[in-house]
Every structure is written in structure tokens, then in C-alpha cells.
């Protein structure tokens, strides 16, 4: 993960912002031992993601770099790092907090945005094709039930998610 450190875009208030979010409270306990990184199955296969570096960049206040990056979206939420962290940093939860902040600032990879649209519209992340519906009885599966998307929409509306997602969709 290459990053240029410039004073521009660096905000020491950023780690406080993360701390004040649900899931982000423990970020300042990190002392960079690297247990998370060596525990991470994603980091082992790609150099685009390293949980230790995500925490370090956040603590250094590299707000723009962290929020606009793809890497916070690469965590697979296996919680191995969190289980083994000697400082009880809730690393996977910190990354969720970062994703929430990123989404509010309008940063979300298109794939995730498409998932979000699909959930708001159909209550599913994947479209159900006619072919699939016809195939189900043939392999002994019951027909698909309605998803109860109305209840889901209420939640998404209460949290403001739908509004943010709409802004994202309408953005150029």
C-alpha cells in the first residue's frame, strides 16, 4: 500500500472522529504490533489491504487517503485480528466505523453501491431471474417468498442510509 504523506489532508481530529463512532472506540489503543496483519487472510493474498496500516493511517490523520481508498472495503470480517489483538482493539469494527464515515462522505465503491440499491429496491443483493425461479422447483426448492422489503426500508430510512445512497446514485 503506497501512500504519500503530506500535511495536506491530514487531520489529527480524524482519530477522534473514528473514536466517537460505534465500533471505533478502541482505535487509539493500537501499538502497531502487527498481530492483526499476520492474522489477516486478505493481507496474505493481496498487498492492497493491511489492517495494521489502516489503523496507522487513521491514527496519523490521513483522512482523505483512508476514506477514499478501496482498502477499507477489502476486509472480509473474519474477526481473526480482533480475536488476537493484545490491546483489545476491535479492528474489524473500526473498519466498519471507517466504512460508515466513508459512505457519509460519498465514498463507496460502485459494487457496494449497486448492492445497496438492490437491497433498497428488492431486499436482495442479487436479481432473481426468471430462469432461476423456474429452476427452483426442479431441484426441490420452495418458491421464493417476498422479502419484507418495507420493514427494511423503514430501518434504512431511520438511519438515513437511503438518503445517502440516493445522493450517491444521483452524483455524476
Amino acid at each position: 500500500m503506497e501512500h504519500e504523506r503530506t500535511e495536506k489532508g491530514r487531520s489529527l481530529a480524524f482519530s477522534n472522529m473514528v473514536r466517537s463512532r460505534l465500533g471505533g472506540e478502541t482505535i487509539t489503543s493500537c501499538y502497531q504490533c502487527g498481530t492483526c496483519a499476520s492474522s489477516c487472510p486478505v493481507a496474505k493474498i493481496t498487498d492492497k489491504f493491511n489492517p495494521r496500516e489502516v489503523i496507522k493511517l487513521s491514527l496519523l490523520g490521513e483522512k482523505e487517503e483512508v476514506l477514499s481508498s478501496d482498502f477499507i472495503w477489502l476486509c472480509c470480517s473474519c474477526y481473526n485480528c480482533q480475536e488476537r489483538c493484545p490491546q483489545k482493539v476491535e479492528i474489524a469494527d473500526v473498519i466498519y466505523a471507517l466504512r460508515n464515515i466513508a459512505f457519509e462522505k460519498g465514498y463507496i465503491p460502485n459494487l457496494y453501491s449497486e448492492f445497496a440499491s438492490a437491497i433498497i429496491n428488492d431486499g436482495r443483493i442479487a436479481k432473481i431471474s426468471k430462469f432461476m425461479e423456474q429452476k427452483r422447483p426442479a431441484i426441490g426448492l420452495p418458491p421464493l417468498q417476498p422479502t419484507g422489503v418495507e420493514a427494511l426500508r423503514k430501518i434504512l430510512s431511520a438511519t438515513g442510509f437511503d438518503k445517502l445512497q440516493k445522493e450517491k446514485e444521483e452524483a455524476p
Partner: protein
Amino acid sequence: MNEPKVGVFLSDCGNQLSKILDFDALTDHVKKISGVTLIARSSEFWRGKGLQAIVNAIKDGKINRVVVAESLPKLSEVKIVQAVEESGLNPYLVEVMDLKDHCAWPHRDTPLEATEKAKAMLSGAIERAKLLEPLEKLEFPVLKSTLIIGGGIAGMQAAVDLADLGFEVHLAEREPFLGGLAARAGRFFPTDDCAICIQSSVSDVKTITHTSRKCVYRSGFTEIPHLNILTNSRIVSIEGVPGNYKVTIDKKPRYVSELKCVACDLCTTVCPVEVPDEYNAKLKTRKAIYMNIPNVHPPAYVIDESVCKFHDCAKCVEVCPTNAIELAQKNERTTLNVGSIIVATGFQEFDSSVIKEYHYGDYPNVVTNLELARMIDGFGPTSGMIARPSDHKSAKKIVMIQCVGSRDKRYNSYCSSICCMISLKHAILIKSAYPDTDITICYIDIRTTGRQHEDYYERAREMGIKFVKGRPTEVLRDPETGRLIVDVEDALLGRFLELDADLVVLAPAMVPSEGTKELGQIIELLDEDGFFKEYNAKLRPTETIVRGLYVCGGATFPKDAPTSSLQAHSAALKAAKFMTTGKIVKDQRTAVIDEEYCGDCEFCPVTCPYGAINLVSTDKEHFVAEVSDLMCEGCGVCVGTCPLNAIELRHSRQNQMLAQMKGLMSVNGTSKPLVLAVCCSECGGTSVDSSGMAMMKYPANVRVMKVPCTGILQVHQILEAFKAGAQGVMVVGCKSDGCHYEVGVQKTETKVQLAKTLLKEYGIKPERLVMLNMIYIEGNDFAKAAQAMTDKLEKLGPMQIMGGS
């Protein structure tokens, strides 16, 4: 006691104070106060002619109470009190007030107001003095003997010190041999010498130079006069009071007479029972009759009763040439009476098997630092070879993992402080003996903070020992080759490494030893990490909150041998100081219970930080509190806690405090609202003194009253201050975690909150009452707070009490 005849002595500090204060006005004011029979003014009253004037007045019978308005009262009071006592007047009938730092210096810009304040402060002091009562000196006997619990490096060193000073010393060790954890370590940093080396006793006649240090076995440790060594012994109970503790000890049978055994080794050759040797990390076996290492102390074998077949075998009895083996020995219970106790129960390695991903206890080739130390030791199970426990073959690739259970919030959040040095020492020793060994140390931070410690780190790098900054996530075992793989990120490179290893050495956290845990059940002074709590890390190290009870070495926190040794000397000195006169001299400024009002509640015994109060049954079928004058430290926190107003502190009785309070409020002379600052006599109070000393300014309407600890205050006394005329009250105590009486200031904070609620009920604005937590260097903050309080009160206007008055 006769009618009070108060002599008032006004010191003008070489005419310095009279530049600010109007001494004629002060004299006129004092003259009008009833009971004052003598007024004198001089440049000082704590030395020379001034002091002589006080002495003469007492001897002539002109006065029987002394009020001195001086500068530097803490200093001058000592001399004045001594002189008063020598003149035949009880020294507790003296009141010394601070004319310079409380009255003149902080208000030098407003001399009129300063004079008015001085008048009020004098009134307060005189009214208090009139009510003072004579108090007696108390003496309690102290036995000149000590019990040291734990025979490791700290306990042994303290024993040598105290025995050399002529005290009777009992040294109790729970294991059959002395030496503790230290002896197993083999070598020590930073001197690289043997762990079993101690500073020898002067009783060894061949020890003629002061450079002498000796192996325990050469030091004649067991032969030191006045030293009674009790191995295989555990503490059952501790009763009694400081100076006279009664300790019950169980001594397990050794089954071998220490007096007869000549350590010839015949017994071990015939013993048929073979078990894993725990002392040597189970890397070899030992017999049922055994010694840890050669020349161990005491130099006598011991029989492990859990595995010996006793009379079904008795082969050792047959071969012993000196008939030293005594299978009929029984458990012996003894009781010791000692004046003081030193706790030196030490620490031990954390059980690393709890951290499953490192597979300690699961993979045989994962060992701990202590186990490695046994391998490095030539007396150890491998005679110095670094072997893989799985096949006893030489280990060529070693990976060390630091901070196993240390700096880990799941287990021990603290840094164990010595493990970096232990690992560096081990790596260097191995590399020196076997240069082709490949050693990698995985660390979070390398901490080498002591004298010469950084040298080890440098030497290790010179020798080619590798360092990886990263805490491994897991130790894996190759299922085919059985070799170990350490999975770690080199955080400096951001690169993942899979380190191949014959042997993985863990550096476990250091945690309280079994002995420390056991003793903690009897002496309940453990901190949140399970170590014994020292009284004050800076000024009272090795002391505990209990008089005559000291603690040293690893029992307080993991530490290296030099620090353990240093602490042992400290604890020994403090114990010696405590015992040397054979008595504790105290005064009677202790709590006293009014049995008529005391009624069965447990507030005071639970609150007293010194365990000085017990409930005792009376013939009236209820319990009353009883204060031990020996244990009471005179803080008065119990007074403030008693819901029935049944406790008083001598010398700070309620009527004395109230009279002073009223005196302080009896004079205003300014247009500003009166403020009463009630300060403790410790850190909180010194912030008030220091603001004056440093000539910081605050308004003169702030009047100062000292109490031993603000914990003595009762809610109704705070309200009394308002009734007496205060428009605002400042309670100045120590920092919340720095109260000299442990819990005093915390209790005060609660009471201040409660008083605020009550003030509201009476229609008084609760912000008229503030609590400050200060220390000496915060004099400036006190001055600012006093100014802010005055400004606030001026804004609020005169106090309106609901329903008039």
C-alpha cells in the same frame, strides 16, 4: 484545667510583616478577646529572645495557652512546641498560625484588608486555643525480631542485613530450598554473574573487605547468628498488632535431618522412584529424594512425599551413612512472635498455555524463557546444550517471541519490564556458546531502560541476532517434518514472514507467584494486578499502609535482581528503623467514640483505611466501635463518616473547629463576601501555603482553616460555615488518588455533593460551595480559584436563605 489564659505572640518577621499589616490594630483587636492575658510582639518567636519570652510567660504562670502568629509555621512550630513542653506546659495547648503566607504576602496590595484578615485569623486561632485539651504521649512495645516471608534473592538479602544489625530474623520459604525464582535463572544481567550470588554477612569472619559477595553456599548463610531458616514452610495466619505480630507457620516434613545430612548422594543412587523434575522444567527426571542443584541451600536432601514409597522401600534409610533420613517426621506447627514482617514472595512466569495460538504445552518444542534458562545453565537438564525437547537434538534455529501475556489487555496489561533483557541475555549466551545458531527475536518494542542494558541490545546486533518488529499471530507445526513455523509480519517492512524454527522460546509475562497469591489471602494488600501494594511509590517504597509490614522484590512487581536487592536493603532498613528503639511513640490525636451514641452500624470500621476500628460487644446487647490508639493515624475520616455524630478526633474536636470557624467569620472589614477555605494539612493545604509563599495574589476575604484531612468534615459542619457568615465555602483537599489517608478526599467529594443538594433545599445556590483537589505546586491554581470564587459571589450578591434569617 484552669480557666484559659491565652498568650498571643505576634511576630513581625524582622519588621517585614508590619510593612503590610497594622500591628497596633492587631494588638487592639486581640486585647478585646476574652481569655487573652498576654500579648507580645517581636521579630520572631521561634528562636532566641522571642522563644524565651514564651517560655518565661509559661513559667511565670501568666499563660496556659499559647497562640503564635509566625511565618513558616511548619518549621517554627517544631521549636515552639519543644520549648513549651520543656517549660512544663502540655504541648498540645499551642496553636501556631501563618501570619506571613496566609495573611500578609498574598494580600500585600490591599494592606487594610490584609490586616482585617489577620484579625479574623487571630480570632479563629485564639477561640480554638481556648478549647484545646492537653494530650498524652503514647508508647507501644515493639519486639526486635522480624519474619521474612520468601527465601529468594530479596528475602535472603533482607535477612543478611537485619541479622547483621543484630535483630532476630526468621526466614520462611515455602519450597524445600532457598533461592527462589532467581536461582533457576542461572545468570543475571547486567553483570552476567551467577544468580546464587549474594552480598555476604559480616558474621563471616573471613569476609574482611567490603567488596565481598559470595555464592549462597560459600556465604555461610545458614550459619549467620540470629537467623532462623524455615524451609518447606507456609504461613497459616498472622494476628496481633504492629510491633507484636503472632504468626503461625506450618513446616512440612523434610524427612531428612538438615543437621545430619552430608549431601553424599548415596540416597539418590538407590532411590527407585523417578519423576519429571519440575525445577528443571521437566526436561529431565529426578528421584523421590533429591536436591535441586549442587550446593543448594540448605545442603540437605528432601523427600517428595507425593511419590515416595516410604516404609515399603526405605532403601535410602539403609544406605545413609549418617542416619539422616527420618521417615517419621511430622508436620510441625510453630508460632512466632515478631515485631515486623517483610514480604518477599516474588513473581513467577505467566502460564503461556492460555494463549492457544502459541501452542505452549501442546508442541514440546515451544518453551519459555525460564525453561531455556535451565538449558543454558551447565547444572541444568541438558548440561548447557540448547536442545529440542521433542528429540533432545541440538536446536540450530531459534525464534523468540516477546510479550507473551504482557502488554496484553486480555491477560496482563502491564509491561513485565525484564523480559526483553532476559531474552537478549539468553540470545547472547547461546550465540556465544554456539555461534552457528540462528536466532530471531520477534518484538513489539525492545525495552532496555536500565544502566548498561542498551549494551546488550547492541551486542546482540553485533553478534548477528536478528530482530523482527512484529508480534506473531501463531506458531504452526509442519505436519510432515514436525518443524515449527512462526507466522509474523515484519511491521517495518510490511512484509509477511514464515520463520522456520527448531525451538520457539516464549517470553511470558511475569505474574504474582503462588506464594504471593497465597499470602495475599492473609495480608489483604494486593493491587488490581495481584501484587502487593507499596504505600507510596515515590516516598514510601517497600512500606505498606500497615506499620511494621514491609514488602520487597518481585512481590510488588516484576523486577530484575539489582532492583530486588535494592528493595531488600530498603525494606530491611525500614524494618530496623521501626524496631530499633523497641517502641512506637505516638500521640493521642486519635479518634474517640461516644459509646452512648454509637449504635451498631459498620460505617467507621469499613471506612477506616488503617483497620483501627473494630466493633466490640457490650453488656447492653449491642455493638460499639472501639478505636485502637496504636492503629489510628488521626485523619478523622471516621468522624466525617459517622451518621450519628458519635466520633470525635482529639485536637480537632467539633467544638474546637466550630469556634475557629466562628472566629474566622467574626471580622470582615471589607465590602467583599467572606469565603471560608477549609484545607487539609497535607498536599491540598500546602497549595494555599505555597500561593502565599510565592506572593501570588488572591482576595483577603478568603479565610483559611486547616483540618488534618478534609475527610473529617461532616455535612452539617459545611452548613455551619454558611451559618457562621461565610458567603462561600472552598474545601481544599489532595488529589483524588493522592489522599494521604487513602480514602479521605473521596469521602469529602461525596459529602460536598450531598451538602450542595442540601444547600439547594435551603434556597442557597450550590455553586457557593466548591471542592478543589490540589498539590503544592498548584499554588497559582488556588489563587486563581479564590479570585474566581470571590468574583462569582460578588455576582451572585448577598446570600438569601429561604424563609429569611
